[in-house]
């Protein structure tokens, strides 16, 4: 696989660490809704198809990337710097 880090450019899979499913939102820290926490920590959509996920460019700039990738073909549909895209989403 080749992941196009928005900062570093396209890089080999070996430089990246998969950081998991990006479909989950962490409940509010004060929330005591156990089922929400359980869903956040343990449940996965495990999509067969385009999957939102985090990768860290751990052997590079170390930024986390928000990636959409097909779990059927491994084709990468989009990549963004996670911190930026998270902040953008929060701003919306």
């Amino acid at each position, binding site marked *: 696989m080749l992941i196009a880090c928005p900062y570093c450019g396209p890089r080999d899979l070996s430089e990246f660490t998969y950081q998991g499913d990006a479909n989950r939102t962490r409940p509010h820290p004060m929330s005591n809704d156990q089922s929400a926490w*359980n869903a956040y*920590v*343990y449940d*996965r959509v495990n999509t*067969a198809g385009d999957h939102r996920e985090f990768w860290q460019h751990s052997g590079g700039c170390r930024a986390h990337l928000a990636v959409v990738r097909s*779990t059927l073909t491994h084709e990468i549909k989009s990549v963004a710097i996670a911190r930026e895209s998270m902040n953008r989403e929060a701003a919306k």
Partner: protein
Amino acid sequence: MALYLRWPAGVIYTVAQSQRFIRAGTRMAEYSFLSLLRNALSGNEDWKPAWRKPDPRPSYDVIVIGGGGHGLSTAYYLAKEHGITNVAVLEKGYLGSGNIGRNTTIVRSNYLLPDNIRFYEHSMKLWENLSHDLNYNVMFSQRGVLNLAHSPAQMDEHARRGNAMRHEGGDAVLLGRGEVARMVPGLDMSATARFPVLGGLLQPRAGTARHDAVAWGYARGADRRGVDILENCEVTGFLREGERVVGVTTTRGEIRAKKVAVAVAGSTGRVMKLAGIDDLPIESHVLQAFVSESLKPLINQVVTFGGGHLYVSQSDKGGLVFGGDLDGYNTYAQRGNLPLVEEVMSELLAMFPNLARVRLLRSWGGVMDMSMDGSPIITPGPLPGMFLNCGWCYGGFKATPASGWCFAHTIARGEAHPLNAAFTLDRFARGILIDEKGQGATPKWH
């Protein structure tokens, strides 16, 4: 090697015994040395299919989705242990096309946590008699599984595990450096090794089995007890009456059933979505495996590396069969990527520097149902009329007999057997985790 000293008397005894037993058996198509000989003389023209290829019936008592090891053994034990024979196993491809047909064949019960030890120890006992039970040689070879230790702390961890097994009645031996060196020639035993070998934990009764034979043997066994095995029959949806699951739609038509059991390993996410269950504590990851060209006997046990994640054994055909870590990302593609191939080879050679001139023959991948604590799920539900078996991670091949045995019990009785009582879906919410590796909800690390 004491076995060989006894061999002449032993074998005569053996052949006589087995023939007597087989003659006493009821069915015609029994496999034995004599039937082999008889057929050889008549040009092998009379062999019958190992299992029928029936058309689906409109309904069954139980439908088992997934013609892998677990689905097939479930059907077999439903018939054998519970007398439920109006059963169909639905397989989307050819039988055994999933992980049962692509694993590194290691069978062991050297677990740390009591729930796992008991379950896998039960499996081990079933393995020890499986070829007889199925009248199919699954080539279970109890050649021993040796986990190497490379630091005093790792020796202690192995001791903890070995002791845990021994306290549950299992077999485990802690070997010192010298014993390991004698047992496994070729290992890098030099003091300058990056991860010097200090010793290892041996489970003598553990070993390997011929993976395909397990699928075929269970299929034949189930078929002979009346189970319909439906290949090229992909489940495409579930029939529901309210909440209740009452059957499935397939590429070979609609099939109804009183109970529908799901045992589709790496496809769990996809199949359960068909039933409207979108979220499960499961991720699908690819695990690659490798086989070298065929060699004369070189490695006589299953050996695992403690300085990384690697296991290797030699198949009876002579290929070194080995694997390492997951590629480490969600995928449903049965193929991996190159960096992991290189990682696995580095680990193998760190352990066996003599193997650099051996050549890789083939590599492949399987899609694993990784659970959030690394332990399986065998449970009624999550919908009425449905039963779920998944979460096998790297380790479901060895579980094949016990998984089917427990799942059959669960399906027949509607509730878990004590052996699988801990393998629930709600254990995560309740915090009763069975986390063998202590890695938490990060499936790629289990």
